[in-house]
């Protein structure tokens, strides 16, 4: 393993701040705790929107009230209405489903694929490791958003294709982290001990190596969720997303873009929804990282 790779593998762990006095630490923690609770509340609300939009949204999202187009926020329309006369709040509530779905599905797909490749490469080593890693390095030379754009454009607009496009660019990251973790665990004395008493390789991998290596992936996945949501919305914004009766947030943003100077609320609220969701997910991801950081718990 090269020095660069080991640094990459540990990058997630090494961002801890130097130990500070206990008092300052606790004050800091209370602020960050508040932020995390707020983020959790926002995330819960958005998940609720995705699960039971009918309980939250006051209007049907497809209902076009053509006598009430482009009304500013307030009154009976919390976020105003768009150029079709749809209630923007209701459309945003219903649109959360696709945005969240794209985010979670692409993280899951990326984690599974990346994790499998990383585990195989790390545990098997040798020529398999070499080939897999070189392939991933080729993939890594292409910037993530560019790769997603190319795939989405080539496969055509569908939800599954968007998930593939977004997840593929995250695969190398997950694979490298898990590979690094596994390689460092693999050489530990307790693994050698297991080998020496004749435990089969697969059993060592499943019972000893994997449980001790997967935690960083959880953190990466949480943080990656934000990126995926952003990238999925970006693809929709660029017109590569799924065209549906109920548009997702990226599509709403692009529909509102042409109206920024006449009806700012059309693009602003879907944009805020994306920002809030990504911010909440990232805050929770940060907290999760702190919690799972071995140095932090040790200190």
């Amino acid at each position, binding site marked *: 393993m090269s020095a660069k790779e080991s640094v990459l593998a540990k990058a997630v762990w090494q961002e801890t701040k130097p130990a500070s006095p206990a008092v300052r630490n606790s004050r800091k923690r209370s602020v960050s705790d508040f932020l995390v609770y707020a983020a959790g509340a926002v995330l819960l609300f958005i998940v609720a929107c995705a699960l039971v939009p009918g309980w939250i949204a006051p209007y049907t999202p497809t209902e076009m009230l*053509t006598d009430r187009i482009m009304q500013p926020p307030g009154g009976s329309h919390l976020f105003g209405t768009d150029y*079709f006369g749809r209630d923007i709040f209701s459309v945003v509530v219903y649109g959360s489903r696709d945005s969240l779905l794209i985010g979670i599905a692409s993280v899951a797909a990326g984690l599974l694929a990346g994790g499998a490749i990383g585990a195989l490469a790390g545990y098997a080593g040798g020529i398999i490791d070499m080939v897999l890693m070189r392939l991933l390095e080729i993939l890594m030379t292409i910037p993530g958003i560019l790769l997603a754009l190319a795939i989405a454009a080539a496969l055509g607009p569908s939800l599954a294709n968007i998930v593939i496009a977004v997840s593929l660019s995250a695969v190398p990251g997950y694979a490298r982290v898990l590979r690094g973790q596994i390689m460092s665990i693999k050489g530990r004395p307790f693994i050698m001990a297991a080998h020496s008493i004749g435990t089969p390789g697969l059993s060592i991998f499943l019972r000893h190596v994997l449980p001790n290596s997967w935690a960083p992936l959880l953190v990466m996945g949480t943080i990656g969720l934000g990126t995926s949501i952003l990238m999925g919305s970006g693809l929709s914004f660029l017109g590569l997303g799924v065209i549906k*009766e109920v548009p997702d947030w990226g599509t709403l943003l692009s529909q509102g873009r042409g109206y920024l100077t*006449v009806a700012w609320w059309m693009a602003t609220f879907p944009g805020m929804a994306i920002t809030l969701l990504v911010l909440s997910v990232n805050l929770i991801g940060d907290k999760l990282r702190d919690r799972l950081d071995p140095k932090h718990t040790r200190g």
Partner: protein
Amino acid sequence: MHPSRLMKSWQLMSAIALSFLVLLSGCSSGNSQRENQHSTSGGKVKAQGSDQPGTAAKGGQLSFALATSPDTLDPQRTGLAVAVRVLRTLYDTLVIQGTDNDIQPSLATGWEVSSDRKTYTFKLRQDVTFHDGTPFKAEAVKFTFDRILDPATKASNSAQLIKPYASSEIVDDYTVKIHLTTPSNAFLSNLSQAQLAIVSPAAAAKDGEQFGKNPIGSGPFKFVEWQENAQIVVERNPDYKWGPGNVENKGAPYLERLTFKIVPEEATRLGGVQSKQVDAAETVPPQNILQLKSDPNFQVFSINTGGLPYTLFINQENPPWNELKARKALQLAIDVDAIVKTLYLGTYDRAWSPLAPTTLGYDNTLENGVKADVEKANALLDELGWKAGPDNIREKDGKKLTLRYVDGSPNREKRNDIAAMVQQQLKKIGVLTEVTITKDVRSIVHEQSNYDIHGNSQVNSDPEALRNFYHSEIKNMAGRHNYPALNSPEVDEWINQGTVETDKAKREEIYKKVQHYIIDNAVIIPIYVFPYTVAALNSVQDLKFDALGYPLFNDVYIQNKP
């Protein structure tokens, strides 16, 4: 910190600072250059004014933002309307079309038509020279038209427009006879279109394929430069004195320089006008038309285009849309008024007929003939045996009543939004609309014919345009345009009559019959008449438009109000 490290970071910092300085100075020198250019041009304008005391100093420079880039400036090879806007400044045509569809002289001073209407004899102006100094003679006309027929030219739209041209015969230097294979009523008005503009034979022969990058015509402006995807610059042709009848200034244009900027992004294009970086911008979205109209610093021009309005064609090949009652149900359920008012905010006119109002033969009795009526539409579908299913979608023999609506992307003129509104409106009569927005209209619509509704429009100067969309002979041709797959012997016969009928009034009557048939049989649902819109600063004076809605810059000058 380690001293060597410290030094390194210092080096880095100063390097960054330096590069910023270089960047900044680059920007500022660019600016000052531009300002210099501007001030010298201003000086010239003043000098010209002092030469001719008494007359107002008309002049200036104009920058005009286009929404897309022209493909070529070779009139015979272009397939894009945006190219025509530039071509009009560089070239002249034999004749021009006035706003009431009459044909007027331009490069031709007059013409005679033989009794069999297959030979046109044109008398030509004798004082015209091309930008490269070549004098304009009968040979140029013959060269231009023969060039279109030559397969090596790979002529685009011009090949359609020149039909049924057979050959040209040079009688003398300033007389040319044009022979047609069949009589055609559209021929003269087609000659007025910029795609049939006369090119300099010397330059076109010399530059060949590259002529589109070095265009030489006889128009009011001369070509200066074309920066790919950035701008096209033309300058005043000082020798110009053969302005056509649709402009006041027959001499050299007042503008010294005309710059067409290519700005595809809508918001940037309009922002350019609003921040006065460009003087005018084309294709203004409805929401901005209203905004700019209420601002005293700007003016908005809006010219309805002729030809076929934006129309939803119902494909009769696919059941149940082969049945009149089913199509009538669509006609009654789609509330076009609501669509046009909501999406275009009163800036576009609703279309009522397969022809646009400015086109010859337009039947205004069709106006207000169709009213949205959901109950009647429901009754019609009930009669056909489509009964409401559990999810409010109608069913018959276990099949759901679906309608495949295919529209192209990007969302030009909010056409995708029309699809979204139609989808909601058809829900009310239990029709499930599957909207497909695709970049690949060619294969889905033209090749596989996999649609129930497809929308399109065509800018054209003559009702002959109907042939391409409604004549049954077009149905099975490659690159089909007969989207409704209409197969009506009556309509075919009328369209054929319209092509050869010489009496204008009779011709109008024939096309009125066609229009009535199409609406009465719910072949299509006309949606809106497309206006060509231009937003301009108030300093832009006398911008005019020709019969097809293309801008004319001959009379334009810049006058800043104090």
